[in-house]
Structure formats: C-alpha cells, structure tokens
C-alpha cells in the first residue's frame, strides 16, 4: 500500500462512464457528479450497493431505465454496511470454493449521510471490522436527508436550517448539533486500512483516493462532501464552486489515513472566511454576522488539531 497516484492529470481520466444517462437527479447534483467520478475511478469490475437515499430515488425509475452500467443493488437504508459484507463474502467464498473464477472485484457502497452516519451506523462499523479486500464505503454527504425533503442528519452542519431544524423566533440558529465526522469514526476502527475525506474539488484527489482505498488491502471509507442545490438552497452552477470553497474556508478538511499514517492533503493559505461559503447557501441565510464569526472561530480551533495531526503523522482527535 502506498499513496500511489492513478490519475495524474485530467487527461488520464477514462472516457468511459459507469454511471451514465437514465437518471433524474437535480440540475447541479453533487452526489451525481460524485457517483460519476467514483465509478470512473473504480472501473468496470465493480459492484455498487445503494442504500436508500436520494441517489436511490433519483436514479432509475423513469421508464424503468438504469444509469448504472456495472451491477448495482439496492439495500435498505440501514443495510449498507451489511449488504457489502454479504456481497464481499459471497464473492470471496465462491472463489475460494472454486465456484467462481478468481478475480479482483470492487464492492462499493454509496451510502448517504443518513444511511451511514445514522440508521446504518452499526452495520457500517461491523463492515469496517472485517478484512474483506476491495471493499469501500463511500459516505456521500450532502448533509441532510434530501430525498425526503431536507431533514437534519447526524452530519448536518451547525447553523443549517432543515425542515426538522428550522430557524425560528425561539430557536434562531437552526441545527445546533455539530457535524459527526464519519472519517474519524472510521479511523477509530483497529487496523482499518484506508480512510479519507474528499469532495468534488479537486476531482483527481477524489478519484485517486478511490483507487487507493480499493487497493488498500482491507475495508476502507471515504467521507465525501457533496453539495446539494436542492437542500443547500444554492445555485446549481455553484456545486463545484461550493466544494472548492468548503476546502478554502477550512469548513471541510482534506486528509487521508493510510494504515494509521495521517496525511493532510490541502492547507488553505490564506484561509478564506467561512462567510464566503455560507452566503452562497440559503440554508445559512438566517445566520447573523456574529454567528458566522462564531463558526469561523470553530473552524480555526479545529484546524489546530489537523495541523498537529499532520505534524505527528497520526490523528489527534479534535473534539
């Protein structure tokens, strides 16, 4: 296992898509872009597992079409972790018993924040504790339950309004819980081979992380922040821009942990004020200047730990 780079430039991205037409995602859908990049990086020998979520409801359906040109199977909202273990186990056992040709097959779960950070949390944790190879859990995080109409999940950021955490006269902030850091949770599993965070920008970072995860020799997790115009009340044209701003304001830290070694992938220098990220999104429109400053302060404090972790090469838990 190394920090190998599979795609050095945009030119090296394969032209073929395994997530193609036949979907009905929103304009500017971050998870759809994520799906496209991740499936390109994983390649044709991949099985996708899709727990219930917006990427379940928004894909296929129309005229019984399917956007997946690799095998894809739905699993229940809380079943992502277990379903992947079932698939990985079946493949390995059938190969071991000579019932199937020996081959490297990727099993990738595209689980939303609700599926992975909430209802399917226990199954995900079980999945990360096994030693199946080429098994990748992608937490595609658009920070709320989007297909049911934008309800808060465990990864909804502080200050965001959702239909379950609206900003009102008595509760002016909206969501007052802090975002659950699923990559840190994954990193807490003993001997987990590869854990990373990513977003749509830079795209090669996301794709190379998928490659590294699948070649890591064990179960892996990538927590990917994917902007959602519908639930973030942002312009569809801003999806990739928001990914970039999340990085540059420090709201989202890009890091990876390879066999226990921590690596910070990007340092925003100078770090932009989080206001630039928040003001593009309607879900933060109720926040006052002092709230945004408070959030910026929280980011600053958190970054001390990321820098410290980078210095010692091991995770220092920031909370």
């Amino acid at each position: 296992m190394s920090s190998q780079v599979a795609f050095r430039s945009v030119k090296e991205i394969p032209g073929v898509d395994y997530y193609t037409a036949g979907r009905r995602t929103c304009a500017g859908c971050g998870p759809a872009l994520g799906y496209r990049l991740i499936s390109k990086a994983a390649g044709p020998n991949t099985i996708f597992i899709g727990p219930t979520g917006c990427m379940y409801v928004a894909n296929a359906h129309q005229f019984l079409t399917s956007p997946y040109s690799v095998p894809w199977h739905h699993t229940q909202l809380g079943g992502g972790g277990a379903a992947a273990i079932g698939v990985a186990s079946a493949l390995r056992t059938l190969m071991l018993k000579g019932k199937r040709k020996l081959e490297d097959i990727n099993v990738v779960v595209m689980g939303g924040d609700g599926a992975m950070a909430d209802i399917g949390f226990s199954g995900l944790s079980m999945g990360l504790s096994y030693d199946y190879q080429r098994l990748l859990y992608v937490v595609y995080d658009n920070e709320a339950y989007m297909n049911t109409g934008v309800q808060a999940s465990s990864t909804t950021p502080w200050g965001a309004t959702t239909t379950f955490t609206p900003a009102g006269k008595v509760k002016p902030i909206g969501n007052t819980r802090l975002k659950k850091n699923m990559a840190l949770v994954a990193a807490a599993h003993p001997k987990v081979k590869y854990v990373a965070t990513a977003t749509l920008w830079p795209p090669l970072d996301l794709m190379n992380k998928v490659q590294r995860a699948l070649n890591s020799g064990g179960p892996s997790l990538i927590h990917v922040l994917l902007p959602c115009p519908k639930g973030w009340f942002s312009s569809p044209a801003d999806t990739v821009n928001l990914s970039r701003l999340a990085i540059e304001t420090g709201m989202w830290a890009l890091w990876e942990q390879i066999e226990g070694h921590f690596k910070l992938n990007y340092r925003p220098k100078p770090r932009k004020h989080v206001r630039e990220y928040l003001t593009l999104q309607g879900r933060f429109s109720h926040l006052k200047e002092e709230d945004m400053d408070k959030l910026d302060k929280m980011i600053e404090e958190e970054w001390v730990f990321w820098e410290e972790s980078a210095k010692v090469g091991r995770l220092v838990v920031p909370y």
Partner: protein
Amino acid sequence: MSAIKPMPPITIEKPKAKVWNGARAIAEAVKIADVDVIAAYPIRPYTGIMNALASMIANGEFTADIIVADSEHSQFEIVKHASAVGARVFAGSSGVGLAFAAEAIIVTALSQLPVVAAIGTRALDDPGNFGMEWSDALMFRDFGWLISWAKTVQEASDMTLVAYRVAEDRRVLLPHFIALDGAAITHVATPVVPVTKEQATNFLPPYRPPYKLDPAEGPITKAQHIAPSLIGPEQRKAVDVATKRAKQVIVEAWKDFAKYTGREYPPFIETTGMEDAEFALVSMGAYMKDIELVADRLRKKGMKIGTVRLRYVRPFPAEELLKVLDGVKAAGVIEFGYSFGSPFGTGSLYHEVATTLYEAGSKPELLDFLFLGGREPTVEHFTQVAEKVMESAHKKPQKKAYWLTLRGEDI
C-alpha cells in the same frame, strides 16, 4: 459346466443414527447442503444452530464464511446480498430478533432471493419471555416467505435440505423459513439419521440464480426505485404466482427426497386416524406428538377422533385441509400464536383454518385452543381440548376460543 456362483445377498446398510438436538441437526443439514455464507447473531433459542455451524467451520468440516453480524437486521441483509451474488446462504433468529430484522426479511422475498433461515420459535417481548410461542414466525406469514413447521428433530433436519431445493427452484425463487418449536425441537436431543453427502448431491443441485450480481454477468440493476404506475401490482403478482407454484415444487421435492433417502413424508398434511374421524385436532409443530398420543388414547376408548398436522403454513395447503376435514363434526385448532383483538379472540392459525373451511360444503364446529405466553402444555391439557371438541358436536359451545395453561378458569 461351471457351477453357478451364488449371488451375494443384497444388504442395505442401515444408516447409523446420531443423537442430536434440533440445533445440531439443522446445522448438519446446512453443512451437507454446502452452504457458502452464513450470518449469525445470538438470540435464544435458535443460537445453538450457529454455535454448531461455527465449530464445524472452525474444525474444517466444511468451507463456508460465517459472519458474526452486529444485529439481526445486518444478519438478514448479509445473506440477502450474498444470495444475490450467487452464494447459498443460511441465517436464522428467534422472537424479537426476527422483528428487528423484519425490514431485511421482507425485501428478501420481494427480491425473490432464495435465502433459507431457521426460526427457533419464541414468545415476543416484553417481558423477556423465553417460552415457546408461534407469534414470531407467524408475523412473516404475509410477506412471500415459504414457511414449513417441523414436528421432530429428524424432520427439521430433512426440511432444511428440502427448503434449499424448493427455494432455489427456478419456478419458485423465494426465501424459506423452517420453524422449529423453541426448546421442544431446538434443545431436545433425539436419534437422527443424517442425510449422506451422496444423497444430498443427488437431491440438491447447485444454486444457479438466473441473474447474478456479478460484473462477469454484465450490468444488472436490482431493486431500483420504481413508480407504482410502472410495475407495482405486477411485481406483487409475480411473487404470488411463485408462492402458488411452490406447492407443486414442494410435492416433487419430498417425493425425490424419499427416493434418495428412503424417508417418506406427506408433503403438506400429516394425519392420524382421519379415515373415519368425526372429530379432528388441527395443529403443527413438536407438540403434535402429544396431541397424537391423546387422540390415540381416546380412539382406543372408541372415540372417532383424529389429528391433522400442517407441515407448511406458506403456501397454505387449503385444498388438502378441506379434503381431510370433509365430513368431520367438530374440529379444534391447537395453537401457540395469537392476534390481539382478533375476531372472536382467536389465534393466527385458527384464522387460516376458518378461512379454508368457509369453502367447505358442510362446516364442522370449529374451536380454538390457545397456549400463549410460553407456559408449557401437558398431555392433560390436550385431553381437555379433545373432550371439549367432542362435547361441542352435541352441545353448542359458548365461545370460539379457549385459553389453556392459564391460571384461573378459561376452558
């Protein structure tokens, strides 16, 4: 002229019986079925099956991946998806564990994946009740799973093998529960004649799903989001047709099972003394042995009473049941499952039998006898039941359902 050599006498080797409890016997059948993926999560009384399987695998008796799951929900998701890839799978549970897994259990049938699972039947909580009740297994009567009910440890073991054969048949492709009365089957050791490897190979072909979740088979999208306007009712109908087709496949499978092992079972309904019976006791499961004993004793006293045992709840053998109950004056359903607030306060099995008898030319007086909350019944209770049934033929009963083993007076 050379002397004709006498032929050596044909000897059929009598298979040696082992003394196994139900849990072990099921595990041995799973082993002989060459199962690939097993998912385990503990809950009494089914756990012994997984304990036995785990030690067999650990000792190299057969190759399978046994996954220690984090919950029953995961357990059933694991086997569901392993089955979709093309593995032969096994799971199981009891009581509220099954309720926790309900979501995964339901989608397995609607995806038409031939998962086989055992239920060590147990009362549902609260309070924590380890007694035997049928309410856990009967909860799943409406979701497209085939459900068979074993009377003996031997039958439980044989049913497991037959379950794979029926579930994986291309005409069926439905998951299959084998219900074992908790403790009465799971924990009771009796002599069992195991199915040999050779018999199993002849009887049970390898699992070959029509569509595999495997890149080598090309892209398939399974269980995608579908608008009801597109295939809603048609998909339900497909599952229903499969359950109906299962009836024929079950008959064939048990016939073949007898051919290869020499053990014959009636496919759907087992009766004793029903040829000229005026009274019938209808039930299923392990306590059937006691019920048969009671009926036999009464028969020796000249009473025309017989017993009817259902071996399958799904598909429900309605035609077969109608036939055996034809001409009976009164029948009593003996059961361990209930539906609170149900019509006339009757149990789950009663509803099935009563629905069937609605189609009968002459309907017998039908009574329900409930053993609820897991308290153990005795032969005396079943004798009381039989007497009540016989009495009802000439004296109109005051109510439909009677609770037994209850402190206080119900019967």
